């Protein structure tokens, strides 16, 4: 049944107890994502270490089970990556959610592949991608500002 695929236990667990929730006061990157059609709103805080690796990442915001769990898993998976690694990782995950790439359940993607049920619910895909687009925007903006350790607040809407 499609619904069981969508609402796998692991997703509901992340929904009920999401990881990495909160704010970071001295974040290097702050990025906000907003899905106008449903009101989902996510704010991401990223702290980089000296080697520009993601040292800490937190998020705030209310949303549906899909968006909350996707965000929670994303923050787990992205920690420790460099900016460029993280960007590649985001793009690769987005390709999977577009159905352009097979979901892999190896390595970093293991948990994340529980989100593949979303493919059967096209209208929910943006719930799953919201935080990924948000972190991507933040990382890109940070790069374009040439690594100045400055806060960038970007808002995206309703993407893909």
């Amino acid at each position, binding site marked *: 049944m499609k*619904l069981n695929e969508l*609402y796998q236990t692991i997703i509901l667990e992340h929904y*009920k107890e999401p990881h990495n929730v909160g704010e970071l006061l001295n974040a290097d990157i702050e990025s906000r994502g907003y899905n106008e059609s*449903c*009101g*989902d*709103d996510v704010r991401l805080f990223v702290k980089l270490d000296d080697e520009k690796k993601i040292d800490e990442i937190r998020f705030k915001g*209310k949303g*549906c089970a899909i968006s909350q769990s996707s965000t929670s898993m994303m923050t787990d998976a992205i920690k420790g990556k460099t900016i460029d690694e993280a960007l590649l990782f985001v793009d690769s995950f987005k390709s999977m959610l577009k159905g352009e790439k097979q979901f892999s359940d190896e390595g970093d993607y293991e948990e994340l592949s529980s989100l593949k049920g979303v493919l059967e619910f096209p*209208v929910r895909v943006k719930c799953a991608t919201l935080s990924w687009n948000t972190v991507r925007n933040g990382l890109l903006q940070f790069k374009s500002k040439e690594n100045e350790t400055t806060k960038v607040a970007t808002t995206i809407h309703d993407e893909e």
Partner: protein
Amino acid sequence: MFNTEKIISDFPILQRKVNGGKRLVYLDSAATSQKPLSVIKAMDDYYRLYNANVHRGVYSLGYEATEAYELSRKKVAKFINAQTENIIFTRNASEAINLVASSWGRANFRSGDEILLTPMEHHSNLIPWQLIAQQTGAKLKFIPLIEPGILDIEQLPQLISEKTKFVSVVHSSNTLGTINPIEKIISHAHAYGAKILIDASQSVPHFSVDVQKLDCDFLVFSGHKMCAPTGIGCLFGKTELLDAMPPYMGGGEMISEVQLEFSSYREIPWKFEAGTPNISAAIGLGVAVDYLSSLGMYNIRQHEIELTNYALSVLQEVDEIEMYGPTENRGGVISFNIGDAHAHDVSTILDEDGICVRAGHNCTQPLVRWLGVPAVARASFYVYNTKEDVDALAASLKKVQEVFSFAAAK
């Protein structure tokens, strides 16, 4: 008598099966209603038989189109007890409000003037006033809300004064179902010389509205929520106000004499209808009005009251449900949440059973914020809905609970 079986058979889409053979249970008529065959056919006939531009052609086809278009205006006028020339066709309720805010507002608002609204307005009756307030220096004020989602009209005397130039209030809330005491608000407004607009988007489709009895200055609604096609809405305005207002848009049809440097405009209602109108949808609206009249607005209201009361009592039994809005004197709209489940997830799970409910803020962000929740799910009823639909909703909500297994989590 209200023969729902017959009514359902009037709506082709309700014969459709969804998600592998499931009956379509459409509970989102507050967003847009379904269309009866007579309306669909009226549009079809127009394009197959007498499509031509209006107010322009001397030839018979053009005359037929013009007559049909203007006949619809007459029907709509009669439906809300207005004069024909006071009915302006717009794209939707939103455009009608923008027209008034922009044309009346720009001509009349001065810095420091006050516009009185409520926190339960649809974005369409909020943003246009924010925009014109920014441009003119007018200020927005709001009639506060009290539990369980009604206006605190005791505060009207403190809120309305000579400074109040305009009041704009929703008749029936699309999120809470609250039917506002607009008669009182209208007389308060008029006592201070303020003009008042009624957003009747959720009332004109559902019960009888009489603009003369109400004595409102403006009233707006959308066709697509009352069995008519998309792309047609109405503005009612009093003659002396419309006459004095500058045109909203310029273009063909709305002019009288045109020189390169200046122009004079046609009389109302045409002064406000620039360019080729949505002829087919206007004709469809006339047929929709015929359809609703044939059912009887009184009967429609009774049917919805019955259904809403039934739904309130059935849904109450659903575990962990929270419903919003008053229990009495309300329209057929029920917003709710189930435990920790997000409205989107609720909607997705119901959809698997062929049940369409809205999820989100229903274009009323400030109101949903006031409710203190991130989103709501909303079921709304119309002429073709039945107790079986309500039962299907209640049954499917059990699945939501299974998926989110609150019991286990507690």
